[in-house]
């Protein structure tokens, strides 16, 4: 999508009051910007993110057919949104949404380019990866802990090297359909301790960029981050608690961290 085309999309959507335009009250956003530019208050920044999230969602949806979960794309797009918010100059005679669109789209494109997710994974590796996912789950059940590479190799009658190749694929490409969560994502047990957990997360002085990124994560991803890095739980323990597989926890964790790191390094580049 060219920058021009992207502009048209946004303008069109906003004017016709379509899905992306919904909820973006321009006068309100403008007032927020005025206050943000003056005080640089992180809370205002977060509010600006919230107000413009529909735009990110709309743009992220355009990349949906590339095999990446929409929520991950939204996360990546939000990084672009943050950059645009920080750089937006009120004196410019353009709407923020018009200004932000190329930045958000650029971030999404860069994401695919960097991760090589647009590349097709050889069928052999896709199949290997699918069978490994199954075998790891079975073996974990059997032995009561995560299996070693040698144990996996013995089970599938492959060399350790081949198994490693297959496992490398699992986090590099989104080729495996993720198993759905066992329960709803917002069951009471999930939301219960969120307040307490948020405090722990916020007690850390992150780099300015990380706070809003973490705040913008879907609840389940944020919870997994908390349980693994602050709650001292292993991936398997988290998997059992959330009713999903350990490999699913692994993928969510890896993707979330990749998105957070992308934000961190991108910030360094522009500082």
């Amino acid at each position: 999508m060219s920058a021009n085309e992207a502009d048209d999309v946004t303008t069109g959507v906003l004017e016709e009051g379509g899905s992306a335009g919904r909820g973006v009250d321009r006068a309100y956003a403008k007032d927020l910007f005025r206050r943000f530019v003056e005080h640089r208050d992180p809370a205002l920044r977060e509010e600006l993110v919230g107000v413009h999230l529909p735009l990110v969602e709309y743009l992220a949806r355009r990349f949906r057919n590339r095999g990446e979960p929409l929520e991950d794309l939204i996360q990546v797009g939000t990084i672009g949104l943050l950059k645009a918010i920080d750089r937006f100059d009120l004196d410019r005679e353009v709407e923020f949404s018009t200004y932000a669109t190329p930045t958000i789209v650029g971030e999404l494109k860069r994401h695919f380019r960097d991760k090589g997710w647009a590349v097709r994974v050889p069928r052999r590796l896709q199949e290997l990866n699918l069978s490994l996912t199954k075998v790891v789950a079975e073996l974990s059940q059997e032995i009561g802990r995560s299996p070693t590479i040698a144990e996996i190799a013995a089970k599938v009658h492959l060399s350790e090297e081949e198994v490693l190749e297959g496992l490398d694929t699992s986090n590099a490409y989104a080729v495996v359909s993720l198993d759905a969560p066992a329960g709803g994502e917002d069951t009471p047990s999930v939301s219960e301790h969120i307040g307490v957990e948020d405090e722990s997360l916020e007690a850390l002085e992150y780099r300015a960029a990380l706070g809003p990124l973490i705040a913008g994560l879907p609840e389940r991803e944020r919870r997994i981050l908390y349980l693994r890095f602050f709650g001292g739980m292993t991936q398997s323990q988290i998997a059992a608690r959330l009713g999903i597989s350990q490999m699913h926890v692994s993928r969510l964790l890896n993707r979330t961290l990749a998105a957070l790191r992308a934000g961190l390094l991108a910030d360094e580049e522009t500082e």
Partner: protein
Amino acid sequence: MPTSTSTVHLEIPASGAYLSVARAAATGLAAQLQFTYEEIDDLRIAVDEACTQLLARRGSATTMRVAYHLADTELRVDVSIEAPDRGDPLPRDTFAWQILTAITDEVSEQTESDRLRLSFRKVGGRT
């Protein structure tokens, strides 16, 4: 099988594009030490995190060194980058530090006169 004192050295360009190489090496070596799948995953996250932290402070450095020290059941990973004028130690109150300490058995950081160094140790065969 590695002996109890093997060390593998890796030198890569100081760019995020080469992190996959550092990760792949860690994965292969941990497999030899009978790390479990989950421990290997943690190890990969830790390698990513340590390397990213140093890359974020790379300044004009062009290469990054990663040393893998293999012992009977543990792997120590030592990441370092040239840093002539950037002797600031890695702050402890960051999310990065929290991640590293949560998923490895020991994290340490040494700032030498001309190198920034971040090391961690992970014991395998347990979970």
